[in-house]
């Protein structure tokens, strides 16, 4: 019997909540590192930071796969019944785009690294294949793409977080609380 049948439809599984926050924190940290590291002067520390950034990216990619697989087996709870149609569409569209970007961002980073001539070796142990040959122009183009995808994702994350806060403070529904159970409004609208 699948685990989902044990969960009421109005709640996320603990696994889903855990994966959401794990990936959220990892994305924020990896994003910040990605902004910080390129302007550093070359040093052993810089090489380490780049490697850590890449290891984190590969790890996030794998966790996103895990999360998506879990999501197919455990459908998320429905949105509040009273939400206007356009808000439901916007929320779903944002979620789908975020999933797409959570795959596209690490993929673009991996390809960029290959094109720049640096293989990605996960945790210094597992070499990922280089799908592209070293090519400076392609590497620079992929860098632009990696940045564009990242800033798109950052923008969407802000929209996503702002919407959650708006639901919590203005609509006073349980949208935010079902991802952060300790925030549950007493007697909140379900």
């Amino acid at each position, binding site marked *: 019997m699948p685990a989902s049948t044990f969960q009421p439809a109005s709640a996320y599984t603990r696994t889903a909540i855990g994966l959401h926050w794990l990936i959220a924190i990892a994305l924020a940290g990896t994003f910040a590192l990605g902004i910080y590291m390129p302007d550093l002067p*070359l*040093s*052993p520390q810089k*090489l*380490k930071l*780049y*490697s850590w950034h890449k290891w984190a990216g590969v790890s996030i990619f794998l966790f996103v796969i895990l999360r998506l697989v879990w999501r197919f087996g455990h459908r998320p709870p429905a949105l509040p019944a009273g939400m206007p149609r356009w808000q439901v569409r916007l929320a779903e569209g944002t979620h789908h785009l975020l999933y797409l970007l959570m795959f596209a961002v690490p993929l673009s980073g991996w390809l960029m690294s290959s094109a*720049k*001539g*640096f*293989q*990605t*070796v996960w945790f*210094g*142990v597992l070499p990922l294949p280089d799908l592209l040959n*070293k090519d400076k122009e392609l590497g620079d183009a992929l860098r632009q793409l990696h940045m564009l995808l990242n800033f798109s994702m950052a923008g969407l994350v802000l929209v996503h977080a702002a919407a959650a806060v708006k639901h919590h403070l203005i609509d006073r529904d349980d949208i935010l609380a079902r991802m952060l159970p300790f925030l549950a409004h007493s007697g909140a609208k379900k």
Partner: protein
Amino acid sequence: MKSNLTLSCLALIASLLHAPAAQAVEFKQFQAAKSSLSFVYKQMNVPVDGQFKNFRARIAFDPAKPTAAKAEFEIDLASIDAGSKDANDEVAGKAWFDTKQFPVAKFVASSVKPLGNNRYEVAGKMSIKGKTQDLATPVTVSQQGDGASFDGSLVLKRADYAIGDGVWADFGTVANEIQIKFHLVATSK
């Protein structure tokens, strides 16, 4: 009698003409454009390819007398491509090659030992950044037409020459072992 003498003379001339070809030729014209010198180093366990663009060699190799072979090798260290512009700027600096002070690395072979199957062990002195160390490397010689190529690879430890000093001295980020591959071509003419 006279015709016999003529024949012998012709035979002698013919043998003299053929003599250099029957003996081995000596390969001593270094062909820079056909030669390459590349290396692989590991940073954070990631293999990164690099190469030197400018180098010269004086080679004199007679396959019939390999132990008499001579080889000298000079590398313009500033001609390095270490995989990225950042890396190229970095390795020219004092901590690495200090190319202003020590622009050239030099290898002088002192002995050549046949190992069989066209393989030889070449031993000599390598000087980089004011430090000289003994170095030996296997070399495979293959002849084609009037040219011969000398191929080999060896592992050089950067710490032996203080390449990558100071903050880089720790091998945790950039490994000590540098894998070097050379392909040198010399012709007989």
